[in-house]
């Protein structure tokens, strides 16, 4: 593995599989009475969060603590950032404090890449704007593999607000690398310009895609990133692109329903589908800790070559 994890494109098939295999072994730790390993003792991991997040930050924190690393949480609210400190100065402060890894979430695409130039330690992208969220893609791939046994040859439909979704971007790259066929589904207004150049196919018609999908990944509509209106009403969106039980019934028997969370029940996914046996939403959270432990181990566990 490289020194940093900035993009899902940093991983080739062998590297991504190594992460998933490592995560599968580390998942056993979660079931033990003593949920702790001494592997990263004495290492410091800084969670640098410029954007709100509950599950990703807590997930990284749990992962680092289970590997015995020291964790420093830094959120932009109430810090010197609120007084006008730049990303670079914050980075240099963290460097001086001896951070071995910085987990960064930022509203600007590319912020983790900039950070990687200034820091000696590892940088992990925990979401940069609408660009990438590689550990989410890894935990999604892990969840698919553990439910369906494989990734290659599967058809994964990613449905909803593709335009604003870093999860969709990272998943398109990673799942393609691992041999899955990705179909992006959403209204034309929420489909990124130039999507034709991605290694995926796309469709505006959810009902046409559902019967052939092995996996349906429901994305939340990110209203907080929307300055304009991209669809007339929430109800109209839900009617065309929401996964209700009528649509879920058209899925293949083995097909699973995923969502990166947070979910909005009744909009992109109906409550009865979110709570059904097909749904992996809660599993994904648990798998997130194992996958992030694997990434931290592979980035920090060895010596610097």
């Amino acid at each position, binding site marked *: *593995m490289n020194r940093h994890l900035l993009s899902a494109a940093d991983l080739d098939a062998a590297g991504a599989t*190594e992460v998933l*295999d*490592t995560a599968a*072994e*580390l998942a*056993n730790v979660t079931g*033990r*009475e*003593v949920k*702790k*390993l*001494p*592997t990263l003792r004495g290492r410091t991991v800084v969670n640098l969060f410029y954007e709100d997040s509950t599950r990703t930050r807590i997930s990284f924190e749990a992962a680092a603590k289970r*590997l015995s690393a020291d964790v420093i949480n830094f959120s932009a609210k109430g810090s010197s950032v609120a007084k006008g400190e730049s990303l670079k100065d914050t980075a240099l402060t963290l460097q001086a404090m001896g951070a071995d890894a910085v987990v960064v979430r930022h509203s600007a695409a590319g912020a983790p890449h900039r950070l990687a130039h200034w820091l000696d330690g590892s940088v992990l992208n925990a979401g940069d704007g609408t660009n990438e969220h590689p550990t989410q893609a890894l935990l999604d791939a892990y969840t698919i593999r553990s439910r369906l046994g494989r990734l290659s040859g599967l058809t994964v439909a990613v449905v909803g607000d593709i335009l604003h979704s870093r999860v969709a971007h990272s998943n398109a790259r990673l799942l393609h690398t691992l041999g899955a066929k990705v179909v992006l589904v959403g209204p034309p207004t929420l489909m990124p310009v130039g999507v034709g150049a991605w290694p995926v196919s796309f469709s505006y018609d959810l009902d046409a895609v559902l019967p052939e999908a092995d996996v349906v990944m429901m994305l939340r509509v990110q209203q907080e990133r929307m300055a304009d209106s991209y669809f007339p009403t929430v109800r109209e969106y839900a009617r065309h692109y929401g996964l209700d039980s009528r649509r879920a019934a058209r899925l293949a028997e083995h097909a699973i329903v995923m969502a990166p969370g947070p979910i909005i029940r009744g909009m992109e996914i109906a409550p009865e589908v979110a709570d059904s046996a097909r749904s992996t939403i809660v599993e994904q959270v648990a798998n997130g800790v194992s996958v992030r432990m694997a990434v931290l*181990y*592979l980035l920090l*566990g*060895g*010596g610097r*070559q």
Partner: protein
Amino acid sequence: MAFSEAAHSTAKTVLSGADLQRVVDRIAHQILERTQGATGTVLLGIPTRGAPLAHRIADRIHAFERVRVPVGVVDVTLYRDDLRSQAPRALGPTQLPPGGIDGQRVILVDDVLFRGRTARAALDALRDLGRPAAVQLAVLVDRGHRELPIRADYVGKNLPTALAEQVRVSLAETDGTDSVAIVPEPPE
């Protein structure tokens, strides 16, 4: 692991397949003797080659006295103290027998006892996995050069070696053949 021709030709075989089988038989007998019939005993192999060895010992114990000893594997990679000296290692499986290890006599099984660091890491791993009544160590080969105060309870063969030499254990399960050999120089 690919055998280079040069290394292969200079390797000195110490135990043949038949010798290795006898050594495993003897360890099984010793365990039965010292544990009075191997009740309340669990064998935990340390990957890679400790795992098949543990199964072989359990099979021999069963053949001799019709006792089924639970077998598991414990990977110690995450507990090693030399992780930072090289690139991250791939993890092996950890699988405890269904009954767990609490209150049991755990016998750790490995192929080679060398510096003692793997055994130390295994002791640390056990502490996180449960509380055994006692822990013992069984090894196929003890090659000396200990760096920690650790000794084995069951030793297949004491093998005096020089530090630069390598002991290569091959097992049918992992390498296609059974043998123990000394290789003079670490192969490139």
